[in-house]
Each structure stands twice: as structure tokens, then as C-alpha cells.
């Protein structure tokens, strides 16, 4: 048996030997896709039961969801705009996940990034060229966001503080800080009902991609995903991070700088979330205010888990969830369902997809190493 299995000339499971590498490759790649799709279908089925239980038609709802998210060029552009911050906040979860860390405080980095960007831009506006201002805003947002999440990573490694809890506490602290800045030091006296910083002059705003009604944040987000993918898959840092995530002791014995890896990856992750805040300010809101805490940090957690922490998979998942988000208003208007419908759907999908993790490695068909035993 062993000789047979190792001899490429012998056919496996009745297939010609030359096909085997292709089949193996397909089988390994197919596992996350098949299980992921099955999970989404189960989640949608459960959600349909819920919608039936409240006396509405799931078919109408899914149709509206498609129309509102991707049914027209207008809705596609809307979905893409909403996907932009999700790409970045999902990276804030996915990069530390390489090291086995669960960071859930991306929201805090988003709001502080937004405040930092506004605080950087307002004194400069009118004196410094727009492009340079935007670059400085991005740098300020990334530094602040990086420090914020990097702190959670630092505390984890050097003080043993659980990063899930600390990042969450930091996120509440960040929101209080933002309120303090927006209500106090940075408040625009003209903003009465909704305290905000002074608005950015129009020419200092991050514009739209030519030919589209989608701001440049989408391009920045996609680039960040690609850069993250390269860092994880093609550099020694990414490889070392994966080892440290698998077994910290083994990584330390190998002489890997685990502490620096953790601090570096969490800081990079936080800087992406901070950048999301800068984009919110410079492309959508035009000023820093409480709307920055719109829940992008929390939806980003869902996106990252759905994408199994793979930066390239984050791109389609973020666009899909951006579409679901965008269709919320239409569902509310046409079906009389509360806006929380989208939240229920997201929660259901999230639970089922995490539950389906249990099926990985259970099916022999996806594991070429086991094929020979079935002969």
C-alpha cells in the first residue's frame, strides 16, 4: 500500500496519475468554498424561517436585498462605498488573527483615526496643498489607530492582558475621548444639535474615483487588502506570525521575535482601522462627529471571520456585506420591517458560519492525504 501511494505512476482512485495534482489542488481549495457556501445557505434558510415567523415573505426580502445591494449601477456604487471602511476594519481583525489574537476593538481605532485626521487637517486647510493635507491626515489617523490597537497587542505580550477584553475597553475609552474632543476642544460652535468639528473645505475632501460615484476609499481599502495578503503570504514576517500564532513557545525557541511580531501586526491592523476613520471623515462626513461610531468596527469582525482571515477573501465578503447594509433602507421602506433586520441576518450568518468551522477536516473528499486509504 505504502509503495503504491508514493508511486506517481500508479493511478489513484481510478484516475490517471497525471490528474492527481490537479485533483488534490482542487480538493484542498474547494473545502473552504464548499463549507462556506453551505454555511451561508443554512444561515439564509434559518433567517427565512424567522422572516416567515414574523409573517413576511423571505422571497420578497431576498429579492429586495438583491435590488438594493446589486440590482442597479446606483445600488452597486452604494454597496461599494459602504464596503470601503469594512475592508479596512476587517483587516484590523484578520491580521492579528494570524497570531491567534482576537481583536474586537477596531471601532475605537476608527473613531480616534477620524478625530486625528480632522485635528490634523483643520489647521492646515487653506495653507497646504490638498493632496499633502490628505496624506498628512492619513498618516495621523494611521499613527493614532496603530498606537491604539498596538497597545492591546503590547499589553497582551508584555503584561499578559487578554487582548479581546483590552481592545474592547480601549474602544469604549476611544469613544469617550472622541466625544470629549468633539464636544470640547475641537467643537465647531456652529454645530448645534450634532456636535462636530469644523467642516473640511470641499477641495480638501477625498473625491470620487473617475467615472464612478464611489470615493477613493474603496481603492485604498483594496490596496490595503492586497498589501496585507503579500505581507502574510510572501514575507518572512507573515510566516513567522503564523508560527507564533500556532505555538508561541515553539516560535520563541526558534528565536522569533514574538513580542515585536505581535506589536507590529496589531499596530499595522490598528493603522488600517484608523485609516478607515480618516476616509469616513475625508470622504463621507466632512468632519469628525459621533457618526464615526457607526459600527464599522463590529461589522468588520464579521467580515474577517467570514473571510477566514484571508485578506484577499475580505474583498468580496466586504462588498457582499456592504450590499446587505445598503439594502437595509429599501427593506425597511418596502416591507415595513425594522432596520435591525439586517443585523439579525448578519448575526444569524455569523453564528452559522462559525458553527460550520466544526466541519473542516471532517470530509474525506477534501483531504487528498486520506484518499489512498479508501482504495
Amino acid at each position, binding site marked *: 500500500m505504502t509503495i503504491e501511494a508514493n508511486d506517481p505512476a500508479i493511478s489513484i482512485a481510478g484516475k490517471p496519475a497525471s490528474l492527481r495534482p490537479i485533483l488534490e489542488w482542487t480538493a484542498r481549495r474547494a473545502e473552504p468554498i464548499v463549507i462556506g457556501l453551505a454555511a451561508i445557505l443554512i444561515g439564509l434558510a434559518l433567517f427565512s424561517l424567522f422572516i416567515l415567523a414574523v409573517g413576511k415573505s423571505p422571497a420578497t426580502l431576498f429579492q429586495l436585498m438583491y435590488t438594493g445591494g446589486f440590482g442597479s449601477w446606483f445600488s452597486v456604487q452604494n454597496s461599494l462605498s459602504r464596503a470601503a471602511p469594512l475592508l479596512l476594519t476587517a483587516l484590523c481583525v484578520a491580521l492579528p488573527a494570524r497570531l491567534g489574537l482576537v481583536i474586537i476593538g477596531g471601532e475605537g481605532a476608527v473613531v480616534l483615526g477620524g478625530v486625528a485626521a480632522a485635528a490634523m487637517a483643520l489647521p492646515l486647510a487653506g495653507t497646504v496643498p490638498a493632496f499633502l493635507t490628505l496624506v498628512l491626515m492619513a498618516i495621523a489617523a494611521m499613527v493614532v489607530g496603530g498606537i491604539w490597537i498596538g497597545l492591546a497587542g503590547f499589553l497582551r505580550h508584555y503584561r499578559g492582558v487578554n487582548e479581546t477584553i483590552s481592545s*474592547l475597553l480601549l474602544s469604549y475609552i476611544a469613544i*469617550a475621548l472622541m466625544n470629549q474632543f468633539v464636544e470640547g476642544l475641537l467643537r465647531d460652535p456652529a454645530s448645534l444639535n450634532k456636535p462636530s468639528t469644523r467642516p473640511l473645505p470641499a477641495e480638501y475632501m477625498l473625491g470620487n474615483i473617475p467615472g464612478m460615484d464611489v470615493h477613493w476609499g474603496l481603492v485604498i481599502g483594496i490596496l490595503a487588502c492586497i498589501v496585507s495578503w503579500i505581507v502574510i503570504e510572501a514575507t518572512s514576517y507573515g510566516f513567522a506570525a503564523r508560527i507564533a500564532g500556532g505555538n508561541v513557545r515553539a516560535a520563541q525557541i526558534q528565536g522569533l521575535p514574538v513580542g515585536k511580531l505581535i506589536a507590529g501586526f496589531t499596530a499595522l491592523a490598528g493603522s488600517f482601522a484608523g485609516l478607515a476613520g480618516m476616509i469616513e471623515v475625508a470622504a463621507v462626513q466632512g468632519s469628525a462627529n459621533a457618526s464615526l461610531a457607526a459600527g464599522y468596527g463590529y461589522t468588520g469582525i464579521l467580515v474577517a471571520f467570514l473571510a477566514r482571515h484571508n485578506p484577499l477573501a475580505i474583498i468580496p465578503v466586504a462588498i457582499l456585506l456592504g450590499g446587505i447594509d445598503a439594502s437595509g433602507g429599501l427593506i425597511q421602506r418596502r416591507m415595513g*420591517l425594522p432596520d*435591525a*433586520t*439586517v443585523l439579525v441576518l448578519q*448575526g444569524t450568518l455569523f453564528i452559522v458560519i462559525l458553527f460550520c*468551522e466544526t466541519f473542516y477536516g471532517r470530509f474525506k473528499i477534501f483531504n487528498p492525504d486520506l484518499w489512498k486509504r479508501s482504495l
Partner: protein
Amino acid sequence: MEETGIGIWGVPLAIFAGAIRVSTPFIFVSLGETITERSGRINLGLEGTLVFGAMTAYAVAVMTGSPTLGVLAAMMAGAIFGVIHGWICKFPKVNDIAIGIAMMQFGLGMAFFLGKSFIQPVAPKLPSIALGGWSSMPQIQAALNINVLFFIGAALALFLFWAFKNTRIGLILRVVGDSTDAARAMGIDPDRIRLLATAAGGSLAAIGGAYLSLYYPGSWNEGISSGQGLMAVALVIFARWNPIGCFVAALLFGGAGALGPALQSVGVTQGYYLFYAAPYVLTLIILIATSSPTRSLAGAPGALSLTK
């Protein structure tokens, strides 16, 4: 302030009153989380359970006119959330921290969805006990008007402290929490114990929610909890998985949370929003001070994924 003759003493009084008023949900959620974590599982979804409990209690109280029935219904709903969490987490490769975040989102979504029609009506409130009758000052009377759930929470903390140490169930819970293998060797089914512990935790967290919607602030809206359910997880670590510690920590949190409004009432408005961050900063500082990179937290259940 001056004409009431209480002046600057209003600040400690307001903090004391605030601590008692604000701490009750923390007491219940953290006691619930202590039971769950003692069994070796963590439930980060208690935030969702708390808010769903608040909505359920409010809705049932509006419909039946009885706040007690509201609390009972919330407990049922919380137990169901706990059972779902406990059942999903028993499968291999399922991460209980991630499932907690997902359950939180699901619970918030369900509460906002089903609670939409209950934002307007007014529910009957939970009864409170007036202990301030001896004083003629209205502030002191108001401060000592304490809800029954606070006393139930305090009694529950004492009872759990005793039960963990002295009962068979407490011992089983601790064994399961410290070592899955040891529990199996004793012929205990760890999954079942964890399922029950998570259900108990969920139902206690939902009482905390019921307090929010039926007593203080006493109405149902979507912003009713500002992370109390999640803070409780940090609070349990701070309290070292000790129920009496949870009670004391909850009072401390409540007091920290009442600091901002108390100072504002005597005219200190500088940095008002920063005082909102006080409980979170306090928790973080205590976590940093008491954690160590080399050994696991003292008193932590061995099988808890949080401390690994």
C-alpha cells in the same frame, strides 16, 4: 445646591446612590458570567443577552402589567440564549470567544427587531424599598430608595460564594472548569455541565437587562446598554472568579460610572465625557496591574480559553 443644605456632600452621596443604582446589572451579569466561566467556558454574548432580556422584560411587563412576569420571561429568554451558545460551543474547532461576539450581534439584532414597537408604551416599574424614611432630606431619601433586585443580587453573591465551596454542584462546576479530562475521569459529562452553566449565566444576565428596562433608566430603547454585558466579562477577571468579589467590583464600577453625573450636578463640567470612560479606564488599569505574562491569572479556571 446651597439651599438644600447638603452642598459639596452631594458628590459622595450621589456617587453612593449612583453606585447602588448602576451596579445592579453589573452584579447579575458578572455573577452569571462567573458561573459560566467557572465551568471553563466564556460567553462574550452576554451583552446581547442583556439587551434582549431588557427588551423581553419590558415587552412582557407592558403586555401583562406585571414587572415580575417580565423578569421571569427575561430569565427564560436569557436561558435560551445560553443554551444556544452552550450547544454550539460543544462542537470541536468552534471558538467560544468568536461565537460570543456572534451571539452578541444576534441578540442585539433580535432585541432591536422585536422591540421596535415597544419604544413608546410605558411599562410598570419594579418595586423598590425606601430605606431613607428616617431622613428629612429628599436627596438622602432618593439615594436610599433601593430596588429589590439589588438585595437579591447581594444575597445571590453570598449564596454562590458558599455554593462554589460547599456544595456538590459547586465542586462539579469547578472540576469541569479546571480540567475537562479530570471531569471525564470522574464520570461527569463536561459538555452538559457547561451547557447548564451557560444557560444559568444567560438567565442571570437577562435579569440585569430587566433591571435596566424596568427600573433604571426604566425604559426600553436601543441604546439601553452601553456595554454593561461586555464590561462584566472584564469585571469577572478583576473579581478573580469570586462571587463576592463580583459584588464589590460591580459597586466600584457603578461608583466610577456615577462620578461624571455627580460632579456635573455640583457644577463641574470640565471633561464631562472623560468621566464616562472612568469605569473602562479603571478596569484596564486593574487588568494591567494584576496580569502577568508568565503565569496564568490567580484563581482562573484551567480550561478557560480566555486565560490560555
